[in-house]
């Protein structure tokens, strides 16, 4: 089968039904005709939006990791917790593997996701393909399910309540920055669909080759 005849076809990743890709609804998802799995979510064809969101996410995630997410005050004592400090403390208590788990899911994976997305999208916005585009893309797709910023947010809420009984616990700037990062990643999620990233890529490459104008409909399959 030639590349062209496959162009408007999609395969459901859950039931393997080969089907024609209809227009993606602005809200919600295009769903599989047989199993109702969400296949495609609408994404803007403008690269400006995801690039701006990713830059903002990078800044807020940096703030989230510099400032404490929580502070505990007890009489004259004061304890701050950043996520890196939490990882270090787990290591100091002999639970290094738990520390690694926290480090990967709350610091490294989100950082890699945001940095990787910027590495892919920012050069595209400027009209060229970043070095290592395809390998980095595959790594990003593999990482994305291990980003747990939203779970961490809930964890802080539980910790605040648990500590509220014995001392004055308060949320720090880091927590609000984590919240902002979570929100930005949610807004970015439609641009984080594998097919959307490649649609951006193809639109830019086509535009650069001067063969066709970018008509810019990003209509593709989620992975």
């Amino acid at each position: 089968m030639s590349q062209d005849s496959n162009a408007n076809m999609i395969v459901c990743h859950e039931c393997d039904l080969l089907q024609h890709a209809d227009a993606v609804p602005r809200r919600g998802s295009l769903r599989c005709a047989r199993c109702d799995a969400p296949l495609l979510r609408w994404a803007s064809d403008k690269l400006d939006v995801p690039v701006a969101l990713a830059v903002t996410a990078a800044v807020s995630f940096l703030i989230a990791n510099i400032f404490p997410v929580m502070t505990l005050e007890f009489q004259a004592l004061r304890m701050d917790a950043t996520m890196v400090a939490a990882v270090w403390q787990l290591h100091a208590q002999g639970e290094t593997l738990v520390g690694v788990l926290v480090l990967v899911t709350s610091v490294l994976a989100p950082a890699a996701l945001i940095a990787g997305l910027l590495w892919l999208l920012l050069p595209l916005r400027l009209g060229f393909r970043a070095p290592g585009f395809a390998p980095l893309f595959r790594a990003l797709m593999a990482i994305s399910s291990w980003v747990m910023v939203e779970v961490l947010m809930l964890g802080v809420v539980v910790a605040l309540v648990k500590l509220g009984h014995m001392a004055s616990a308060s949320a720090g700037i880091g927590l609000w920055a984590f919240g902002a990062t979570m929100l930005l990643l949610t807004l970015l999620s439609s641009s984080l669909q594998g097919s959307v990233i490649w649609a951006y890529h193809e639109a830019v490459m086509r535009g650069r080759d001067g063969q066709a104008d970018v008509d810019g409909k990003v209509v593709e399959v989620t992975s």
Partner: protein
Amino acid sequence: MNAAGDLTQSFPPESAASRGLTGCHACGQVVSVVEHDHCPRCGSAVHLRKPLSLTRCWAFLIAALILYVPANLLPIMETTSLGATQSNTIMSGIILLWNTGSWDLAVIVFVASMVVPLGKLLALVVLLISVQRKPLGAAPQLSRLYRLVELVGKWSMLDVYVVALLATLVRFDAFMSVHAGHGALAFGAVVVLTMLAAQSFDPRLMWDALQRRAQGRA
């Protein structure tokens, strides 16, 4: 690559696999596995079905089941206060939350730490049996179950984060301190293993099995 041509015969006629096609798991491109073993667009390895899906899923699932025992029996957290040490397992932590009046959070933690991991393990067993023995539900229901398993998996990490934060904040030497316990490690491992099990499971196998049974009956 010739083998792929014969292989496609065993798939249901509606499936992309029966035409030697598959959707790239990373970028969604429709790829012919007869012509390619890597996606021509993004370079991911392409397969008609995830390799060793059921074996890998069972392996992760059994490992998770085994670790589920220490995850619930070992303390995830030890609180030392004025020389007295109190150990908390996941369940006793939930009961403590309930007794101190935070019943709403107790319910949230109970769902994230008890209902979700156990539900996930059960759901994966149901899905595996549905593929390998006989369907334990209609295909759309099983599909929805699989989607739910994928969706809720990571929320079980909640308790691990809570322990990490408490251990970092509560360090008032002799007066009071919190230490992470080995239960946290076992519990974190259960979460990771069930996530890996869910990622290994190929939902397309359910539809293959259902189609095969329907054909067998006709």
